[in-house]
């Protein structure tokens, strides 16, 4: 019987080891999918959305072209702003050809060069004006959503006042007061965009605020600011990313409308909206003049909207693949 005891002990050990090994295998199987970050997951889902990828590529191409324009556009296609009086008559209203892929305008300037330079302003307006809207909207939406009560009422009724005015008319009125020009267009579009952002963010905060983990963070002794910035913000910011991306497109469109009406950037600086305005006179004789800036506006706005759409699906945590 003395022999049995160590044997039994061994048997026991072996069983324990087997059980541990089995548990390990089970664990490994469970954790087979690598631990990705939330953004990694989002990118993984976004990559599967072909339209969104096309949109991203198009936006990148536009941004690169706009940023590097000084390096290659004037050399290859001529100055987009100054009018060469010597060659003016010969170069007027040329249809698309190898030297001028988009043709030339009534002042003999290369349309391609002007579209590329116009992208600078349009993209800048889209990004900066939306950034202004988001900053104002996030702060006001956060205040309203987190504190509720009177603060919330005050902010949301102010937003309602903004909503009560027709958007484009309001923008025109603001630019008319501030005076047309680069900075003023940014300000006008940026200031007008905040109410929607604030509203989206506020409602998103309202739903996150009542989540158990916010209560749990409070029970752990986190301060208001910490709860707001570390627990509520990251969970409610996804709709803002989506909405913000889409409103870049909206801002570009508004800028084009303002420029078309002569309230945006002033000629001779190229701007898509103004180019369309100027080309209406030649609609029948040189239709490409309005086609190219129109195409540029369409594709850019569409790209931002499609990207926003893709982000909406990608950032949805409930969509697990």
């Amino acid at each position, binding site marked *: 019987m003395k022999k049995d005891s160590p044997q039994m002990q061994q048997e026991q050990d072996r069983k324990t080891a087997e059980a541990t090994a089995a*548990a*390990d295998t089970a*664990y490994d199987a469970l*954790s087979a999918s690598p*631990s990705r970050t*939330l953004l990694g997951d989002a990118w993984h889902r976004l990559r599967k959305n072909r339209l969104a990828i096309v949109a991203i590529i198009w936006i990148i191409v536009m941004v690169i072209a706009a940023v590097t324009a000084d390096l290659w556009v004037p050399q290859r296609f001529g100055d987009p702003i100054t009018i060469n009086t010597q060659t003016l008559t010969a170069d007027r209203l040329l249809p698309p050809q190898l030297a001028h892929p988009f043709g030339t305008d009534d002042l003999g300037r290369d349309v391609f060069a002007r579209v590329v330079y116009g992208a600078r302003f349009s993209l800048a307006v889209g990004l900066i004006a939306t950034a202004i809207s988001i900053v104002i909207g996030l702060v006001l939406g956060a205040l309203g959503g987190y504190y509720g009560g009177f603060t919330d009422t005050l902010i949301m009724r102010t937003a309602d006042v903004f909503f009560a005015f027709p958007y484009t008319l309001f923008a025109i009125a603001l630019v008319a007061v501030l005076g047309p020009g680069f900075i003023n267009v940014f300000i006008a579009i940026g200031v007008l965009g905040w109410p929607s952002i604030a509203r989206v963010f506020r409602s998103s905060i309202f739903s996150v605020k009542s*989540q*158990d*983990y916010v*209560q*749990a*963070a*409070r*029970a*752990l*002794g*986190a*301060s208001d600011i*910490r709860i707001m910035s570390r*627990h509520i913000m*990251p*969970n409610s910011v996804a709709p803002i990313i989506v909405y913000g991306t889409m409103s870049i497109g909206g801002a570009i469109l508004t800028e084009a409308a303002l420029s078309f009406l002569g309230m945006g950037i002033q000629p001779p600086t190229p701007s898509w909206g103004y180019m369309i305005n100027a080309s209406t006179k030649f609609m029948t004789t040189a239709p490409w003049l309005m086609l190219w800036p129109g195409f540029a506006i369409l594709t850019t706005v569409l790209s931002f909207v499609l990207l926003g759409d893709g982000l909406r699906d990608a950032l949805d*945590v409930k969509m*697990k693949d």
Partner: protein
Amino acid sequence: MATDLLVVEDLKMYFHTRDGVVKAVDGVSYTLNKGETIGVVGESGSGKSVTAMTMMRLIPMPPGKVEGGDVRFNGESLLTLPEDKMRAIRGNRIAMIFQDPMTSLNPVYRVGHQLAEPLMLHKNLSKAEAWKRATELLEMVGIPHPESRVKDYPHQFSGGMRQRVMIAMALACDPDILIADEPTTALDVTIQAQILELMQELQQRTGSAIIMITHDLGVVADMADRILVMYAGKAVEYGTVDEVFYSPSHPYTWGLIDSLPRHDMTEKGELCPIKGQPPSLIQVPSGCSFHPRCPYAKDRCRTEIPASRTIDGSHVAACHFAGDPGFTRTEMACAGVNVG
């Protein structure tokens, strides 16, 4: 007394709503000593959680308002403490475990980050130290492979594991009191037992006092030293586990015990639920708030609010007849309630 860690004295928390005043907690008293466990039991809406949330000052005010009473922690009133001092107590000296582990962890942060948060908030640990401690905490609550699991997100954990993480978070700063608000309600039965066992084990190691809020008498029978039975915002019976289980004195406690399945029941034997619904806390019944559902109710119960009667020692029950020699639970009470 030096041993009284927490004293709740005649606490009243009312909610002032559009429909009227909700008396969620209406005069609750108990004391908690170091390392002790108190079980707070009662139906949904009886004010168990609100009592705990009030002492943590987690009730939004308004609509909530403390209408009277006091909560003293180590002799210091928690209800009048400035907010920054209160924050230093929350999560540090008094920590809380929530009911639903599925929603109580922030989905955008790694588990380690969330475990490290209280340590960085209260113990001034550096990020690296806090993460190291987070790994130890995960190991302490029995999660395999803590070094790699600490970097996982909450959605990669199962419900039982998440509750373990919640416990680890609550115990991160070695709190004096751990408030567990129905910690096992959202878990299945086998995991429930594991979690309760874990809590008991950790209590022995850390010496924390536990306030266990539950609607399951079975949960507290095992763990608690004392039991507080609540009904409609009031404490109806309070005593040691043995007193409450072996000589329950309030008809509501009888009802709770009778509604549990028992070993000696026949297969077809019916459970004896307490008839009716808990009352609206806006219009609490006159007299004893339990009288509409009480099979023993007399005229006096409808008009007169019962005072707490001492049965013996610390055992008290808020019933006009509690402790009277002739007032005992009849075996027929169940059938009598059930008929019809």
